[in-house]
Each structure stands twice: as C-alpha cells, then as structure tokens.
C-alpha cells in the first residue's frame, strides 16, 4: 500500500474512532489519498465509512462522547489538533440529500461559505466567486437569470449541484461526499458523475457510496471497509477484477453486505 499513491493530499495514520468505549466504529485505518483523484469508500452498512468520512472534516464531533485517536493530515496539517471551523473550510462536504439553505437565494447560497464565516468580500469578488463556482458545476447557464430566486425552486439534481458549488466556493483541498447521488434519479446521477470526473482535476474527491457500480464507474482508487477495518485499498480496476482479500471478494459478488 505504500506505493499505491504518489502524491498524497490526505494521510490517515492509525485512525480509530469509537462512539462507545471498547467498540471501535473505525479500527486503525491507515491510508493515503491521492491528490486530484476520485477515491471511493465502500462497504456494508455500519462498516464505519461514514464515520471515517465525517472525521476528516471533524463533523463526527457532533456526536457527544466520540473518541478519536491517530493522525489525519490534510495538506500537511494535523486536522485533529486544529480548530474545527478551520478544518471545515479545507474539507468541503456534500450530503446525501441536497440541502441548500431554504431562506437564501441561489446567489447567497453559493457565497454562504464566506458570509457565514464573516469573511468580507466586495461585490465584484462575490460575483466572481459565485459565477466561477456555478460554472464549475455546469449550473451557471441554467440559473444565471434567476440568481435571486430561492434555492429550493430547483430540481433535485440542480439543488445537489448547487450544494457542490457552495462547497467548492471555499476552494477546499478535498471534497467529501456522502452518497451524493443516492437520492437522485439515474439520469441526474449520471450527470453528476460526469461532473465529478471533470472536477477531480481541480479538487480531490473522497466519496462514500453504497453503489458499487458508481464506484467502479468513476473512482480511481477504492477502499473497502468491513466492521470498521480497512480491508483493502487498491486501484479500482484491480479491486473489481481481482481483489486480494476474501472479504472484498464476498462483498463484490454480493455474498455479504
């Protein structure tokens, strides 16, 4: 696994997370994530993939009593020792259900990363950030005439792209995605998958997915987790044709999970 990744933007070292003492939801995970790639984390329900993902932007701390050990280095910084709000600006997150802020317009939604943080930008800078972010998600042409309308008037796929734009506006080092297309229809899903493949040239993407086919379609590297353990971490093409671990094999062929 040492030579799997050449240019690592995220390094996980012996990361363990537990909700209740004695039982690890994430058990001693060590992995490097390649910059400007799409890496997917797969595994059956309860295997710890979402917990691990949320640890990277310290969102897992919303659960009281959670204990984390190990090191997580994002762009060289130890994020477990930093101020959580700063970490979250380095690692953007997109959730399963599109969640644009319902009381804000599309424009305000995209720029909300700055306004909520009290970062002042003048109008020109704001316009530029909004336009660039919306262009990056192929939404600019569709909404440029209705930027003052509320975000909730968009379709599901557009809302999700808006959420991606909102996360990208802060220019994060890594984009964390928690099953971003599982609430969307197949055609919209394909649209967003194509978008992600385009986006990976600008930002590293780490995506948790239940959908093995999606993982096979778009990810360069795949991690398989089972009962909190990182069972296998490999180039997607190799993992899907010739996995090394029997548990990976069983999961891919539908015998477990």
């Amino acid at each position, binding site marked *: 696994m040492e030579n799997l990744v050449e240019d690592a933007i995220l390094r996980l070292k012996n990361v363990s997370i537990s909700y209740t003492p004695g039982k690890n939801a994430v058990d001693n995970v060590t992995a490097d994530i390649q910059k400007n790639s799409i890496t997917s984390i797969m595994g059956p329900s309860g295997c710890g993939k979402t917990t691990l993902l949320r640890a990277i*932007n310290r*969102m897992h701390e*919303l659960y009281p009593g959670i204990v984390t050990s190990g090191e997580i280095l994002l762009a060289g910084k130890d994020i477990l020792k930093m101020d959580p*709000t*700063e*970490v*979250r*600006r380095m690692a*953007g*997150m997109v*959730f399963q*259900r599109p*969640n*644009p*802020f*319902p*009381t804000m317009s599309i424009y305000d939604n995209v720029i*909300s*990363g700055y*306004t*909520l*943080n*009290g970062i002042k930008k003048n109008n020109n800078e704001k316009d530029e950030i909004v336009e660039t972010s919306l262009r990056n998600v192929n939404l600019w042409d569709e909404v440029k005439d209705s930027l003052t309308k509320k975000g*909730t008037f968009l379709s599901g796929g557009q809302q999700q792209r808006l*959420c991606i734009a*909102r*996360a990208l506006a*802060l220019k994060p080092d890594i984009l964390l995605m928690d099953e971003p297309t599982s609430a969307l229809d197949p055609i919209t899903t394909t649209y967003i998958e194509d978008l992600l493949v385009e986006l990976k040239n600008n930002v590293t993407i780490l995506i948790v997915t239940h959908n093995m086919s999606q993982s096979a379609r778009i990810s360069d590297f795949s991690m398989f987790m089972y009962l909190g353990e990182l069972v296998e971490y490999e180039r997607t093409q190799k993992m899907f044709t010739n996995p090394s671990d029997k548990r990976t094999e069983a999961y891919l062929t539908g015998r477990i999970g």
Partner: protein
Amino acid sequence: MKISRYRNIKNKALYIGVIILSGLTAVPLIAILVKVILKGWRQINFDFFTQTTPTTLDAIYAINAGEIIPGGIANGIIGMLLMVLMACVIAIPIGIICGIYLAENTKSHLASIVRFLTDLLQGIPSIVVGIIIYIWVVIPMKSYSAIAGGVALSIIMLPLIVRSTEETLKMLPTTLKEAGLSLGASYSSVVFRVILPSAFGGIFTGILLAVSRVIGETAPLMLTALGSSAVQWDVTKPASSVSLLIWEFYNDPNLQNMIWSASLFLLMFILILNIFAKRISNKWRI
C-alpha cells in the same frame, strides 16, 4: 356481500355522526359571536377607539336620551398594547433562546429539568401569577403599574414561546445545521443566520398565538396593573386593558352596553391575529 354492506352502513353512520358532533362544537362559538355582534355593534364608532371610558353619569344621560353611550375604550387599548409590548420584549428573547437550548439538547439532564419547569409554568393559574408579581414588582415599586402587568403577562407567554420555538426547530431537518457547520461556520453563526431564519415562520406563529392568549387575561392584571380611566403613557403608573375594562363595565349597571362592544373588539382582534398567524405560517412553510 352482506359484510361489505354492513361496513358501508357503519361508515356512513360514523361519517354523519362526526359531522353532527363537529357542528355541535361549533355551536357555542357561533352563538357567542352572534350574540356579541348583535349586542355590540351599535357602540362601535370612531370615538370607540379614540375616547376614554365614559363615567357612570355620562352613561345615565345617554341612556335616558336614548343614545349610545359616549366615549370609548382608548385607555384600554393603549394600555393593552403597551403591556403586551413589554411582555413581548421580555418573553421573546428569553423564550427563543430557551427554545433553541431545548431543541439542541434533547438528552441532557438539565434540558429535561428546564422542559419540566416550562410545562409547570404553563399550568400555573394566571391569578397566581398576578399575586406573585404583586409581591415581586408592585410592592417594591409601591405602585401598581403597566410594568408589573407586562411582567405578569410575560410569564404567561414564556412557556408558550419556548415550546413553539422548540417544536419548530425540531421539525427542521438536521441536514440544515450540518450544511451550515460543514462550511466552517461557528455554531452561533449557524443558529442565527441559518436555523432561526428558516424557523422564522413557526416561531412567529408561536409568538402571535402567545399574544392572542394573553390579550384576554384579566385576573393577573387586576393585581398588577389595576386599571386607569385615562390613557396612561407612563408605564410606572397603573394602566388599563380592554379585558380589565370589561370587568369594570360588568360592575357598573349603567355601562352594560359597553361590555358587548368591548368584547366584540377583543374577539375581532384575536380573530384577526390568528388569521394573520395562519397566513404567515403557510407562507413560510419550508
């Protein structure tokens, strides 16, 4: 099939029964409205809103002359508005912040205690609230006052606002808060710029309903605001309220007609407030 016919008949019978019973519950409301409107509309004119209460003498002259009683309930209206305003200033910030605390901490021990106390507060009879405020505010101030009335009303309003805020916030999807936090915003920033604006509709409705509840309160005001025959802008002095005036009209045999008009005014005010609250909550539904 015999069975399905029996079920059809049962269905229809229940359906008719439900309609009849619902109608029956509406009967008292309609009866009250009709009576109040019929007896009170004659007293309502421009003076009604701008003049202070008439004296007994004025009333006797008017009745003998066959005219409507002069004067109005302006002192009651102003007093009521002032006291409700003060009650809002006290109860709304405290209530909302409490509501936020309870919604965010569903499992904490302290939160359950606070929740329990809020429910208790809601159950305290309003006259008991009046007595307590009499002891806490009226006696130290050595005077009845609108302030005391406002404080008493705020205590009655508080649990309603806390509960409605808590319920509204609980109905918001957690992903809203998560989205805000995941952008690196501080907790307070997320609460004030994302959560509260989204919950605005429900919170505002809760406030309006609390207001419509306390407008009609009489007993606590008797012990705190006492009443006043003139429009009183100095809140450290005794003040009047429409509900207090109704009680005063009841006690004066010559001012009986004013009871109905004042009651009509109150009912209309509460009705309009409720309609307003419903419209707002529909518009702001997420």
